[in-house]
């Protein structure tokens, strides 16, 4: 199995633990990642200039189409933006005209190329398969109670992900967690947004959204599992600030799915980037017995 890896902006600079664990897990599972010369997917500029955002996505899709490998994204927003551009530029003549105008000035072109775009977690679930993951697990994470946070762009808008997960009751991440031997908890508000989308506009509201879920899960789960760098930043990096501001102890480790899977695959924790995690994972690793 071979894929072209789309890193985006945040992961290779701010959330290297996600990238490090994803690459390590892929290596152990026999999945090859090829690095491409990709740039910003366009998502961050969508609020101010959607045509420019679509242009950036189109330029990346063009690069991806130069090989037959499907494009794997670690970031859910990148995945959504690239998938949306493929759909939009096929049905919106006005937007396509605007995109072509911008790309021409940049010396680029997009002729409707549609490489397959797939999120890392979906690739593991759909392409690699749960049975194959279970077959590779050498250290079942029995007894671990995990609260999954599938996030928004991984499953919504569902029109971009036809035939995939339920947009209201997503189950693929739970099943991926259960494939490691851990228990995936059922809890109210599983699909609630982390708040990351408005962090740059109103930090107070974003943090209130983050804190609400953390307070609900603290003490009830051994860890939260995420698959998007924005969710990771909100729940992990902001957790300490929230503890101080709210005057409460949260202490909920936030792991990227490949960090959890890596433990079950018997990968040495030092190769899974846990030093980047803000909330301490020592107790969790102790519970796993590594």
């Amino acid at each position, binding site marked *: 199995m071979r894929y072209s890896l789309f890193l985006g902006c945040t992961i*290779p600079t701010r959330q290297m633990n996600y990238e490090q664990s994803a690459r390590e897990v892929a290596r152990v599972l026999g999945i090859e990642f090829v690095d491409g010369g990709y*740039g910003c997917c366009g998502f961050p500029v969508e609020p101010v200039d959607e045509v420019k955002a679509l*242009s950036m996505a189109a330029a990346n899709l063009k690069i991806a189409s130069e090989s037959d490998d499907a494009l794997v994204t670690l970031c859910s927003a990148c995945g959504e933006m690239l998938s949306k551009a493929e759909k939009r530029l096929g049905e919106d003549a*006005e937007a396509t005209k605007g995109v072509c105008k911008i790309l021409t000035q940049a010396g680029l072109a997009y002729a409707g190329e549609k490489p397959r775009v797939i999120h890392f977690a979906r690739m593991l679930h759909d392409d690699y398969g749960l049975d194959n993951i279970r077959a590779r697990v050498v250290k079942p994470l029995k007894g671990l109670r995990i609260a999954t946070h599938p996030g928004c762009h991984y499953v919504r*808008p569902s029109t971009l992900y036809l035939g995939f997960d339920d947009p209201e009751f997503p189950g693929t991440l739970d099943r991926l967690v259960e494939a490691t031997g851990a228990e995936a908890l059922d809890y109210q508000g599983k699909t609630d947004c982390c708040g990351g989308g408005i962090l740059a*506009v*109103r930090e107070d509201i974003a943090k209130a959204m983050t804190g609400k879920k953390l307070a609900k899960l603290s003490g009830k789960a051994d860890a939260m599992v995420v698959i998007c760098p924005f969710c990771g930043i909100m729940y992990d990096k902001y957790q300490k600030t929230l503890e101080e501001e709210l005057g409460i102890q949260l202490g909920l480790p936030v792991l990227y799915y490949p960090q959890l899977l890596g433990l079950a695959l018997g990968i040495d924790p030092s190769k899974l980037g846990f030093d980047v995690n803000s909330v301490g994972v020592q107790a969790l690793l102790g519970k796993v017995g590594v």
Partner: protein
Amino acid sequence: MAQDSVVDLSEVDTRFLRRLETELGASDLSKCFQCGVCTASCPVREVEASFSPRRIMKLAKMGLKKQVFSSDTIWLCSMCFICLERCPQDVRPPEVMTVLRNMAAKEGVAPANLSKLLNVLSRNGRVYSIDDFTNEERGDRGLPAVESDLEFIKRISEAKA
């Protein structure tokens, strides 16, 4: 709230309405029948009472541009798409929100943190610039170095619409 709720119909902006009609993202706005499922489902609304997608849809549909652009509420949608999944009329509120935000940005009323992003991208080609330290840390972790200058993103950022 009561004061804010009063709308002056003499302020209906027909040019704004005509422009909305040409945007694919707002093409089903006229179908909104104000059921309020969007606001009732909204995770932002749960922590911030001033945010109501339903109200924004109504104001936009009526052509009350000034009211739509005069508060920061169009910028508060977190793009979680729950309302898009639930809207019985397929209005796609987040897409309407993007259309409104783009219009506001063109008029220079976008939050500074968002409007500066295109400048950042035209300078670095990335949201976060790559320095030697970044690639050194990546090397220590066994990760391949990433390019510091992404020319094609810079050129797209600088292109004129």
